[in-house]
């Protein structure tokens, strides 16, 4: 696909069935295994004597974790999942179906989630600032984005004509919710982050920090075991 003039090759991984069972304790091992499998492949490739230049990097650069809009706080499963996965991958929590909450409810919910995340010290991707490299603008931008976490999203594929324009939206008997409207949800901001502004940052962190972490652990495991 093309975004802002640059060609992107995007792989989307979906996880149907997650959390649907009565006993969900085994759910995230599947996902974790997949992520680590990709890392393993890279590790194997790097360690080859003759490396393949055309090797496809299948590592997961970001995970969007969809939180149910209960309005209370994070559930046990949310906390467990985020805890286990964030050491391995950039994790961005997202509030799904944000059109089920009024603006005040949404603000309160976001606050509670961030409180939980801070309390349990879950290392999510929070737009880190590199004090040496980044300039003031980037700092400001990242600060503002951090305040918006977790992002509220509304999804829709239906397009409707509203006031002369054609928008993607959800139609209710009491009104129309626009997906791309910043006042209705954070979707467009998230899209911009993922596909333009922070794409590089996400990739760099995956490669420089997360992968290296994995590599160290894996190799010391093999050395000891």
């Amino acid at each position: 696909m093309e975004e802002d003039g640059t060609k992107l090759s995007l792989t989307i991984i979906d996880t149907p069935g997650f959390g649907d069972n009565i006993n969900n304790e085994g759910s995230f091992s599947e996902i974790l295994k997949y992520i680590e499998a990709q890392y393993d492949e890279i590790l194997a490739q790097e360690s080859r004597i003759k490396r393949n230049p055309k090797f496809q990097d299948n590592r997961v650069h970001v995970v969007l974790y969809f939180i149910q809009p209960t309005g209370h706080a994070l559930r046990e499963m949310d906390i467990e999942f985020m805890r286990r996965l964030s050491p391995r991958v950039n994790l961005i929590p997202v509030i799904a179906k944000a059109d089920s909450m009024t603006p005040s409810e949404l603000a309160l919910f976001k606050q509670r989630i961030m409180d939980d995340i801070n309390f349990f010290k879950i290392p999510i991707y929070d737009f880190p600032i590199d004090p040496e490299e980044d300039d003031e603008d980037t700092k400001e931008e990242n600060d503002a984005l951090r305040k918006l976490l977790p992002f509220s999203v509304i999804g829709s594929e239906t397009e409707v004509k509203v006031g002369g324009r054609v928008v993607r939206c959800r139609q209710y008997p009491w009104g129309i919710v626009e997906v791309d409207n910043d006042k209705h949800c954070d979707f467009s901001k998230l899209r911009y982050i993922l596909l333009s502004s922070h794409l590089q940052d996400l990739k760099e962190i995956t490669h420089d920090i997360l992968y290296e972490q994995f590599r160290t652990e894996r190799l010391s495991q093999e050395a000891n075991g």
Partner: protein
Amino acid sequence: MATVGSSGLGKSTFINTLFSTLLKDYKQQPKRVHDQIERTVSIDVVRADIEEKGFNVRLTVIDTPGFGDYMNNQDCWVPIVEFLDEQHLTYMKAEQSHKRLEADDLRVHACLYFIQPSGHTLTSLDIEVMKQLGTRVNLIPVIAKGDTLTKEDMKAFKNRVLDCINAHGINMYTPPLDGDDDDDTHAIIEAMPFSIIASDNEVTVNGQKVRGREYLWGVAEVENEQHCDFKKLRNLLIRTNMYDLISNTEENHYEDYRMKRLTASGLSDDDPVRNAQKNMSAKMKEDEEALRKRFTEQVRLEEARFRKWEQNLIAERDRLNKDLEEHHKMVKDLENDVEELQAANR
């Protein structure tokens, strides 16, 4: 009335909206002092006396916080099922005892199961729990947070849920139809499972104050039948079918439970123990009769005695009266004599 469902689906809000009063406090955010180690589902009971159009309703609302919240929700329905059975048992015991007081009837007459508006279908937890509940209580599934699904999505979701319910043989409550021209009940049945929106906030729409949820893009109204089925559900619960819910619980569910329980404890109608009991009670009846006879005899004797006594007293009185009369006569004669003498003197 019991409300069962995962947290955050609006059960407490629904209860407050239904009765227009703040019956239930909202879930207090637990202080995250420690991890959620205890995986318990608790049962909260709230009693209230409500007046609805001049009728006093003693309402008991049973909430189930903690349900479906955990990673491993195995057997999370057990506390609820046990609670329901316990109420039947308590009532059964009270019925059997010789003191048939108006026992505190905590039996559940309607159980609202809150379904998450995923738009897909029921989860395996939903199915398992509803199966268990449907055999013990009038089960009314409702789709919570009805303002999350568009009209078409909602229709499709309702159909899928109904398909699921029928496929698994879940016993859902349907109000009885009094004849074919009962339009209201038809409408109610067609709308099941009900989608509900709950709110205890009042918002002004077109100059009128309504209860609803105010979004940036509009107001989802609680009592607007185009928006959700809240009104229909309320009618079913409180107005039209309350009696049916109660009688159905008593006649069907309670009797089912009783039968299961008694057969489980080894009793049957031809049981020798039962027969022995019957004989015992026959003998007891005889003894009772004999006692009663003796009692009547005693009473009769006493009465005869009293009558005699009464008669003696009457005789006494008559005699005394007669004496009195005689004396009166004597006095009169003497008076006459005095008069004559006085007349002769003149």
